[in-house]
């Protein structure tokens, strides 16, 4: 066999494999999205209807309470809760993470490695294991089923990783730039906001998106610390469907779409920075 043919076959195999791979990655999600736009009776049909005969926005209208038929699950309230809780905890976590990340990137101090290890170890605690004592303490403090109760937990959940990422982004900025600004008469505080922060801004933004998604997607803690429409988030709300007598697959899929869409958009924005942040912090440590 001549080499040109061999190469061409190799290329074809690569493409076929890649195509299959993308199919495996994309199909499950796409199928859920498609189901969200189909009437439930078509989803339940036997034998299966593969090519949708009817696409409808009814499922979305229903879970948001616009449709003729009402669904007993208050999705709009869950959506608002999720948004408020994820946004607030992200803003707080980023502020704390910036201050901590800057400390790790720019200072030498005692117990530095120990503190870093401690931060990371706090992240290894499984959500469900942490939920037990937090549940007991929060119920005494009256924080169960409140938004602040969940927000503070998510801030703690996000701090270690935020510090790790932001530390990496600050380290990529040469120390000399801020030092030069200080020689020229800036205070360290001014130098930070005028030099380092603008340079690290896109990295910090991606750390923020990552924190937002962690809070947006979290389930183990939220499922125990929330009770009602006061604080239930979307992932917990999704499980409400399974408690019903018959599972409303179409409605559930519509709700899944609402959870997926922000995640997809934000992933798309963040992807480049996240990869560089993860590898930088890890390899050059």
């Amino acid at each position, binding site marked *: 066999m001549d080499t040109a043919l061999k190469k061409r076959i190799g290329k074809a195999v690569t493409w076929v494999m890649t195509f299959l791979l993308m199919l495996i990655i994309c199909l499950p999600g796409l199928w859920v999205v498609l189901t969200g736009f189909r009437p439930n009776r078509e989803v339940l049909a036997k034998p299966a209807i593969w090519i949708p005969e009817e696409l409808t926005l009814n499922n979305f209208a229903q879970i948001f309470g616009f449709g003729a038929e009402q669904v007993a699950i208050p999705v709009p309230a869950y959506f608002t809760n999720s948004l408020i809780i994820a946004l607030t905890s992200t803003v707080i976590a980023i502020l704390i993470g910036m201050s901590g990340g800057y400390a790790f990137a720019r200072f030498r101090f005692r117990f530095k490695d120990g503190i870093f290890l401690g931060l990371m170890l706090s992240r290894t605690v*499984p959500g*469900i294991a942490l939920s037990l004592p937090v549940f007991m303490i929060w119920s005494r403090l009256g924080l169960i089923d409140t938004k602040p109760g969940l927000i503070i937990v998510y801030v703690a959940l996000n701090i270690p990783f935020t510090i790790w990422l932001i530390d990496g982004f600050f380290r990529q900025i040469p120390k000399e730039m801020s030092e030069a600004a200080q020689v020229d008469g800036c205070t360290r505080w001014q130098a930070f906001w005028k030099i380092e922060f603008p340079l690290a801004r896109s990295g910090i933004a991606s750390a923020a998106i990552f924190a937002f998604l962690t809070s947006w997607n979290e389930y183990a803690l939220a499922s125990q610390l929330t009770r009602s429409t006061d604080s239930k988030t979307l992932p917990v709300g999704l499980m409400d469907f399974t408690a019903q007598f018959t599972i409303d697959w179409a409605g559930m899929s519509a709700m899944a779409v609402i959870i997926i869409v922000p995640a997809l958009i934000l992933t798309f924005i963040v992807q480049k920075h996240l990869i560089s942040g993860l590898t930088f912090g890890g*390899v050059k440590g």
Partner: protein
Amino acid sequence: MAKIEKKLPFWQREGFTPFILLLPAILVLVLVVLLPLLFSLYTSFTGYRLIRPDSLYNFVGFRNYERIFTDWDFWVAFGRTVLFLTIALNLEFLFGLGIALLINRITWGQRTLRTIMMFPMMFSPILVGYQFKFIFNDNIGVLNNALQSLGLSDGAIPWLVDKHLAMGSIIVAEVWMSTSIFAILLLAGLFAMPRDPLEAAKVDGCNPWQVFRHITLPFLMPFAFIAMTIRSLDVARAYDIVDVMTGGGPAGRTELLWTMIARVGYDNSRMGQANAMAYVSILLSIAFTYYFFRKLIAARRYMGGAN
């Protein structure tokens, strides 16, 4: 300058700044993680039940630990959790490596492929669980429907109800969700790889397998261990998937340590015992993280230097 430094109160001195900067982070973690964990350590030595608040002061010594360590169901769940993690992490590494090598060969559309690869990573575990619950549903699931439409099976295969298939289905969901972390980090490793050693090896007459085995793979290992470390920080995510897909059933066949904690703590309201189990699960997570972190450092050293 030194004179001025001396007059400053201690919290304004240079050496103190990093601690002030870290104070908020440490404060939050102490309040939300450390103190609760100390409280749960105490609770694990009591017979605390949620329905009887006064039982919090009912000190029972090591009885909770004795009870779980002599409980066969606990050891089965523990062993299953370790086995589950071992299988899942190995599969994720292998698939991730394959995917990274594959995408590395593609010259056109690489960025798009990489972005698509990140999507499963950003999915909520609860969504991944739901998605596969839907796919594996015996009655209306896509998988059974496809098998039936293709004529490969007449009956409905109970993927999530059968005692052998249920665990496999959960592993599929877990691997689908987390393989991309490995793929992305290994791909970043391939991009960062220097060309010279590869060329030199080819000149010296190494075959592609030898090049891969002795040059590419050792170079990639630190990246693989970063992925493993990141993953082991978050292994308990599998709880969400199991909770949605099977809830630990059928008949406890997919019960992992984490679902067991939830069942004992919240459903049976035996908080003391659940906290004892929670401590075992925390130690397990720390053990996994520590193991991979050590491997990461060793792999880096093998590469020579910190780069």
